[in-house]
């Protein structure tokens, strides 16, 4: 599996460390009434079949945090962006 790092170019998957679902968002409230949201955020993960946004750290390369969008079934990679750009885009939308 080859991943095109926005900084380093195409690199093999071995250079990356994956860190799970990038689409979940941290709850902003500390109110005990929001504990259900926190429980979801900390423990619950979907296991989607198909398109999936996933954090990837280019640990053996430029050490940047990236978000890789791939198909969990076929491992086709659709898109790679920096985690910074991913977060900015999410704030904007």
């Amino acid at each position, binding site marked *: 599996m080859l991943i095109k790092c926005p*900084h*380093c*170019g195409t*690199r*093999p998957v071995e*250079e990356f460390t994956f860190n799970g679902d990038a689409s979940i968002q941290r709850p902003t409230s500390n109110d005990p009434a929001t504990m259900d949201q926190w429980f979801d955020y900390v423990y619950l993960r979907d296991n989607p079949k198909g398109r999936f946004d996933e954090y990837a750290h280019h640990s*053996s*390369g*430029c*050490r*940047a945090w990236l978000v890789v969008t791939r198909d969990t079934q076929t491992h086709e990679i659709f898109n790679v962006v*920096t985690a910074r750009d991913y977060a900015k885009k999410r704030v904007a939308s």
Partner: protein
Amino acid sequence: MPDNFQRVSPLADIAIQGRFGADHGAPGVTLSVRHPVLIATVIARKGKAKALADALKSWRGATVQWAGAEQYFLLDKPFDEVRKKLEGLASCSDQSHGRVIIRIEGPKVRQVLCKGTPVDLHESGFEIGKSALTQMAHVGVHLTRVGRDAFELSVFRGFSESFWEWLTEKAEEFGYQVI
């Protein structure tokens, strides 16, 4: 910090001069350790990436190597000077003691390096002056092309000995000279 203490290369007793490996014809590669060398890591402060890049570009006598997004290795300048010059633009850290730079050059240099890295080192896409961060023999390597057949490999000091062993082993089939 005293100014006059002497840095000892961790490869001082390892990188022994001479001709090794295949002994027919000219050596495939020549290895040398750049020591002593001034190295600083420079990481742009928030929003200062462009200003930093411009400041580095116009700095005479400094060797600037890309080392990740908005990060650089700055060679050949004393650290006090680096910090003063880049005040407000970048966070700087002296790495002169922390890294070892091995220079490898010769007609077989790409054949040696491609045993360790997936980076395509053909000069059509990897020109002189270009750097890449990669891994060879499980060691993180900062690799820079400094000539048509010459590269500099920068590794953490603590890994330099095992990395040297690996590198020389890979160069054996071509014959190598240590200078």
